[in-house]
């Protein structure tokens, strides 16, 4: 299997301006207290994400990668600049239910069974009961949890809970899936299995994914592009195309190209670091809010 033969086929869409799903232009985000700017979370962000892309945002704590994700999902608003999703303002896109959200914690509701948790967004969208049930089962089959419909979330393992959360996010067919360190709390083995699972779902559904992570191997393995960010102020320092062939699997992680790309992302991350790296990490921890 040669890299060049299949590589790039999925990233071809990025050059097609008409199929942009996310367009971020000149976005700044500052947090103010008592009218005084205390943190510049993001500065001069420009980013375009094409239909069907899998884009990872990676960077040190405090680089604003989660803030950037939340800006795309209209969970917070930019101080200046514009965020356009599917050709409309982010708020409109949210009201049109264009977003599926997956957080680091599964955020499942203990009083609902697994199936009822997946049905929740469908209830809000006003689907009738029959359609809700059919879709919930279909989604749980997609994440291979069809045998756990009547379980309650606390009866499942962390990885299984996160799969329910993914099923719920995909249930109403959003056009873009926003994932904020979804596997950060899982052990390495489970994380790799979940990575495989997410790729399988992505390939089957063709959904656009924006994925925030701390993990370089995870970002390289999953993505069609990796956006490298640096802290203080949060900026995009590099965008690395991941031209690994698809479908990716266990053996992908053993390819030379994979290691080259992991190294490239690591170098880009180090390049973006300020000189007083230790001090900035301390500050990043102190200002955990912008993580």
């Amino acid at each position, binding site marked *: 299997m040669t890299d060049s033969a299949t590589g790039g086929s999925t990233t071809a869409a990025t050059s097609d301006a008409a199929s942009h799903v996310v367009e971020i232009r000149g976005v700044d985000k500052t947090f103010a207290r008592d009218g005084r700017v205390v943190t510049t979370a993001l500065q001069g962000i420009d980013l375009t994400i094409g239909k069907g892309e899998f884009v990872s945002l990676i960077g040190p704590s405090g680089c604003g990668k989660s803030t950037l994700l939340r800006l795309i999902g209209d969970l917070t608003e930019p101080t200046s600049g514009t965020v356009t999703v599917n050709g409309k303002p982010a708020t409109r896109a949210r009201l049109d239910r264009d977003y599926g959200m997956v957080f680091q*914690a599964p955020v499942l509701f203990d009083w609902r069974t697994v199936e009822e948790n997946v049905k929740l967004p469908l209830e*809000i969208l006003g689907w009738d009961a029959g359609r809700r049930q059919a879709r919930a089962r279909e989604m749980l089959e997609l994440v291979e949890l*069809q045998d756990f419909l009547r379980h309650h979330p606390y009866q499942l393992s962390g990885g299984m809970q996160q799969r329910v959360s993914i099923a719920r996010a995909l249930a109403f067919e959003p056009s873009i899936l926003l994932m904020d360190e979804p596997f950060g709390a899982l052990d390495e083995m489970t994380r790799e299995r979940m990575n495989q699972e997410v790729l399988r779902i992505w390939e089957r559904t063709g959904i656009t994914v924006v994925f925030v992570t701390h993990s370089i191997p995870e970002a390289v393995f999953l993505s069609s592009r990796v956006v490298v960010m640096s802290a203080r102020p949060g900026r995009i320092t590099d965008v690395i195309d991941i031209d690994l062939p698809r479908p990716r699997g266990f053996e992908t992680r053993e390819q030379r190209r994979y290691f080259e790309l992991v190294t490239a992302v690591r170098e880009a991350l180090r390049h973006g670091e300020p000189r007083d790296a230790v001090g900035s990490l301390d500050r990043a921890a102190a200002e955990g809010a912008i993580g």
Partner: protein
Amino acid sequence: MAGTTASAAGLQPVAARRTRAEGASRGRRAAIWLALVVGLFALWTLVKALGGVPWRPIGAGPGSEMIWNPPFRWDFANDLNLPHWWNIAATLVAPVQRGADETLLQYLAGAAFYTWREAALGFLVGALLGLVLATIFVHNRLLERALVPYVVASQTIPIVALAPMIVFAFGPSVTSVVIIATYLTFFPVTIAMIRGLRSPDPRALELMRSYAASTREVFWKVRLPASLPYLFTALKIAATASIVGAIIGEGPGGVPDGLGRAIINFNQYYITGPEKLWGAILVSALVGIVFFMIVRLVELAVLRGRPGAAEG
């Protein structure tokens, strides 16, 4: 569907083990409870045996034969301050008055049921009021800041001072008693529900925001279900508080049929027959306990399937 049966079978033992463990702990809890009750009566008897006045047969006068002469004389253990529990039991099954058909227990049971109905009505109104207030406060910070101090202040006024004023305003009637029970009930529910309705994970609210859910949907689908454990904790406090409120209210309220009047009456005859007041107090406590357990049973039914529902 082979996978279904396999994994279902794999999970069965977990469920079975849980039920067995719950059954064992329930049995142990019942045993501990029983041991405590027996221990309490044993201690009572021991104190009477060590420091009471000479024991005489049930219903016999001071001049009759002595069964046991305690070695000490402790004031708190004399027959006025701490009657023999078997004398209280005997008084409960004796006629309430000379020549009456009704035993004291029957009379107290009737009074207890009457008081419980007043308390339950106050409890319901108070719980509803607390729920409405908390819902308003959670959705409006300004109103919360303006009004919660008054809600708190309302509870610093002694109910014995307030009860006559309520009776004066609403007349000596059951209505006044219900209002007093409501007054004691709404507070714990308000405070607990402000907390409970705010208890969902901020990300749960962001999730709802990403679904473009309305405030109403967020309330019914996230805030209210998340608050139910808090609600039931408050309702259990409110259940006992409402009984106390009703009993206190019956005095100035001039309601003759409840436990409040019975307690006032027996209080006046304490010197000649302390057992009657003790009986009334025991029955009052029992009403509170039963009401508490009713709320607990509803809680178990409503919170079934949630983690930790069996505790508390």
